[in-house]
């Protein structure tokens, strides 16, 4: 009853192909956008910005990227951290060489550079599958981080090996650097996430997305239908890396401001968490990318609140417990709901359709 589909007839293919075909979803999404664009910017403070909202948006983008590659095209990748580093260092180098270029353009170009690197590391995917491909992408993770660490040109020969962002304006308001106000960084990320999110959804529901899923589900049949395997896999690598590269650029320029590559783009801080996001959120689901990112970003905050503020453990002990609980949750999730939060939501929707008269 709450989620009533009855009576919502579609008389055109256009309305049947809509991203949100149901009126309830349309209302929910519009409300969410209204809150995100017109309420949050006025009430946001620096804690919400730095601890929750901006990292959530950035990791959503990275999760969408990895979900395109792993969830939709079926190519397992552990190289997310490396590709995010490519995005970050591209942004840094472009900023140095073209100080007057608009930050939005810089970030999108960084995404394109990452896409090119992604294609390069996607080449082995024609020959190897599954675990073996995962190991090959793992090599890209270590190689890229090593490269950015060892070649001083990438960090402009600074003594510390750190790269630091300088202030850039968007419509006269700084969106990067220390003086950027919380609402500006938040809105900057939000706009990119909404635009790129829609673009990803559109790709998935048209020809390209169907080619990816065909390769994922049965590559031999896909080939016989006329899906070129190499081109399709490489397109997934390119577009996935574009998203991950943009996420990396935002992570460096907007979120952290200053990074040291081995620390910030380590496999344990980026690659695995993003993989967990799409597994917990739901492989092959746009909604899952967002739910997974929200879950992984807010989990440590929630655990810290419970353990330190409510129970009264010391911060160090709480940190140790946090890692343990994290691992435990991961195992529970994989056993109880391997299809992730997105599946839980669709089950809930099914229940809501019949509530309060289940049969």
């Amino acid at each position, binding site marked *: 009853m709450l989620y009533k589909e009855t009576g919502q007839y579609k008389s*055109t*293919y*256009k309305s*049947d*192909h809509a991203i949100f075909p149901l009126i309830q979803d349309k209302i929910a999404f519009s409300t969410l956008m209204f809150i995100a664009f017109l309420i949050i910017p006025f009430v946001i403070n620096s804690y919400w910005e730095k601890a929750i909202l901006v990292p959530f948006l950035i990791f959503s983008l990275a999760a969408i990227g990895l979900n395109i590659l792993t969830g939709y095209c079926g190519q397992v990748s552990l190289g997310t951290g490396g590709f995010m580093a490519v995005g970050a260092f591209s942004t840094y180098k472009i900023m140095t060489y073209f100080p007057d270029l608009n930050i939005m353009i810089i970030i999108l170009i960084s995404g394109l550079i990452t896409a090119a690197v992604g294609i390069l590391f996607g080449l082995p995917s024609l020959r190897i599958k599954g675990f073996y491909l995962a190991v090959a992408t793992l090599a890209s993770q270590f190689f890229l981080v090593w490269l950015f660490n060892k070649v001083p040109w990438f960090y402009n020969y600074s003594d510390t090996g750190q790269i630091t962002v300088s202030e850039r304006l968007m419509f006269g308001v700084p969106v990067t650097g220390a003086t950027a106000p919380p609402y500006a960084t938040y809105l900057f990320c939000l706009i990119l996430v909404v635009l790129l999110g829609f*673009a*990803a959804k*559109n*790709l998935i*529901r*048209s*020809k*390209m997305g*169907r*080619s990816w*899923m*065909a390769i*994922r*589900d*049965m590559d*031999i*049949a*896909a*080939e*016989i*239908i*006329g*899906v*070129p395997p190499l081109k399709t896999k490489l*397109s997934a690598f390119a*577009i996935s890396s574009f998203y991950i590269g943009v996420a990396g650029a935002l992570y460096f320029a907007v979120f952290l401001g200053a990074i040291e590559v081995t620390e910030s783009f380590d496999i344990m801080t980026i690659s695995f968490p993003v993989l967990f996001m799409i597994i917990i959120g739901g492989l*092959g689901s746009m909604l899952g990318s967002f739910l997974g990112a929200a879950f992984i970003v807010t989990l440590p905050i929630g655990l810290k609140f419970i353990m330190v503020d409510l129970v009264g453990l010391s911060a160090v002990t709480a940190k140790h417990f946090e890692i343990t609980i994290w691992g435990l949750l991961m195992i529970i999730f994989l056993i109880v709901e391997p299809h992730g939060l997105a599946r839980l939501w669709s089950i809930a929707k099914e229940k809501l359709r019949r509530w309060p008269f289940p049969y």
Partner: protein
Amino acid sequence: MSLKDLKDIPYGKTAIELKNIFLAFGGVKALTDVSFDVKKGEVFAIIGPNGAGKSSMLNVINGFYKPTSGTINFAGTDRGEMEPEFAAKSGIARTFQNIALFKGMSTLDNLMTGRLLKQKQNFLMQALYFGPAEKEEEEHREKVERVIDFLDLQSIRRTPVGSLPYGLQKRVELGRALAMEPEILLLDEPMAGMNVEEKQDMSRFVLTVNNELKTTIVLIEHDMGVVMDISDRIVVLDYGKKIGSGLPNEIRSNKAVIDAYLGVAEDE
């Protein structure tokens, strides 16, 4: 060489001609000196005992296996090596013996994949999903809906095919091949594991496709009743060799074929 060429051939003339096809995997000889031709617009059956090389033959026709030697002539042009993608482009679609559907996708999406080669919009237009890209999606959806109507798949349009029963999966797979609007349809045991009613349904679909759309059909099937009823011409393979070919009646009385199926009495 393209789809158009296969289209241009008049009905009743040779569409595919296979000349002296040999196919070996290391020491295993899957096909030895097999030659036959398929005429446009006919229902052509390939039969033979298990392991006779029937599926290998289909794989050769649509480019999945490269013959060790021999030539394949499509619409008057010789073709030795080719990629499956090329066969798909020239108008050949097929189904598989062990269903090869995209299990995570819905029936509708599975059928839409059959339209992939005909969709021309580039990925930027797809990402924007605007104007021509959206129109293209709707056009192809309409074509797919016709296949859905024809095969009675309306009720399972949104169901992931992995959860469908076997008979329906076979039907969806036929639908995916039909969505390609092929000139030649290769069916690898379309009725395996079906009960009598399902076999009747499937035969009806195959014959309707052949009659209404004038699609040439190359079929592998073990049910002799079905094969004798629906096919125009038959070729029989045994141990990778052609042992007979001709009209159903001729095959029925062919000594070599009967021996291959029933076994030969040892000479005294």
